[in-house]
């Protein structure tokens, strides 16, 4: 019986010591082998109002907008003026020939090449209504409008693809 009591006391001590060593070993491993992941910390960066620097991703977006504007203006026989202003911030934009892909752009010294797919946009012909002389008394066919239905898709704006074009 006394031997049993002794075994019990020694046993309990050994179990506690073994698990305590294991605990300290795990704590040590946690410190030595951690991946230095900081959880819950917030990095705060001071931003001075009005002195925002233009970042690379900003100029890329400006380049996309400038390309769209240039294409639109070219269709109307106009050219894009050199500085363009978006949200009161001015950007120096240089755009290469729009007729050849990829189109070269430069926004505030950052150069870009814009293309659609691997080969660029397919060349589109100017579409204009064709008036065909119809013989008198023949059944009238569908007008040219039905061959070119209104757009069923969405249009892209700076905020992304939006609702159906009205």
């Amino acid at each position, binding site marked *: *019986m006394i031997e049993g*009591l002794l*075994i*019990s006391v*020694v*046993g309990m001590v050994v*179990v506690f010591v073994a698990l305590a060593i*294991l605990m300290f070993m*795990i704590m040590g*491993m946690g410190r030595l082998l951690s991946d230095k992941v900081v959880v819950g910390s917030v990095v705060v960066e001071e931003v001075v109002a009005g002195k925002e620097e233009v970042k690379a991703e900003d100029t890329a977006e400006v380049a996309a907008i400038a390309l769209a504007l240039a294409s639109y203006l070219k269709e109307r026989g106009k050219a894009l003026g050199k500085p363009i202003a978006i949200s009161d911030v001015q950007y120096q934009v240089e755009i290469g020939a729009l007729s050849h892909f990829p189109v070269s752009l430069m926004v505030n010294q950052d150069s870009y090449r814009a293309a659609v797919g691997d080969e660029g946009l397919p060349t589109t012909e100017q579409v204009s209504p064709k008036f065909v002389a119809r013989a008198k008394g023949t059944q009238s066919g569908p007008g040219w409008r039905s061959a070119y239905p209104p757009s069923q898709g969405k249009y892209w704006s700076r905020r992304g693809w939006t609702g159906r074009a009205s």
Partner: protein
Amino acid sequence: MGLSDLWKLVEGFKDLEEHPLMIVMLLIGAVLLYLGIARRFEPLLLIPIGTGIILANLPLGELIKPATEGQSGGFLWYFYKYTLSNELLPLLVFLGLGALTDFEPMLSNPRTILLGAAAQLGVFCAFIGTLALGLTPWFHFGLKEAASVGIIGGADGPTTIYVATSMIERGGRDILGAVAVAAYSYMALVPIIQPPIIRLLTTREERLIKMPYTFRPVSKRTMIIFPIATAIVAGFLVPRAAPLIGIMMFGNLLRECGVVERLSKTAQNELMNIVIMLLGLSVGSTMTAKAFLQLETIAIFVLGLFAFAVSTAGGVLLGKLMCALSGRKINPMIGAAGVSAVPMAARVVQNMATKEDPSNFLIMHAMGPNVAGVIGTATAAGVFLALIN
């Protein structure tokens, strides 16, 4: 063929007349099958054990007949002889257990490991209790039997079987069947045994303590090095527990290293399933009427329950101490999860916490002591194996 040979067809009934207690064992086997199938109490273990009891107690004992010179033995005897008596099956279960266990909750909050140590209190109290019973004229329990009974308090089936088998090898009495069934029965009854003890030892205010869970990521390197380091440390501290902890950590290494997914899945599924079938049948086969239907079996069941209850109380009491020392930041209920019934004990704690407050989630905090309890029980087993010869 003579007329006397026809008598062999009804030999079973003749054997029943000579050994009527086999009917009781067949009923016990049927009860275990009922508990496993209808009540879903540890079905993976109780169904093979129940079947093993029935097969072992069939007339003439053909299935458990030992091999003799020129005559082969029963298949259950071979199972026992070559897989259980040499402690192979419990070790293989530990391999699967290691592959199944996620030590991350313990590694991310190592303070709770000590609760797994406190929950081994029942092991040693039941050990002393068994020795005390052995002093009476009705029971013949010595140190070896006391160790087999005490380890039930760890709530770890494979460790219990491992210790009981080792003690038989060292000359102890064969009480393997009784301790194994007691261990697995009480593991299944953890949701019934633990809550009253936890309620008795804690106040409502303590049970309501919330422990916000902050995810602390554990690096992959830590997860890989942990099983290797633990096997080495355990090998030095408790060499007799090295087989159990070593193979468990090997299983865990297979899981965590991430490059042997096939081996990890095999250890978790196919190997584990085969081993559990063999283990259950082998344990059941040891439960013959002669070995099981004794007054001592009842004592083993009572002592096993006592061990479980004291282990739960030990964990909760250390939890209360840690609660007081930490300024009520630790819910003492998580100490009850220190018994190694994974993950049943942790679930019990979670259920009790949500009963008191549906917004209180303790499961991740309880998983730490729960898996630490497995290591604690293996360490306690190592102590018994080292000190009792």
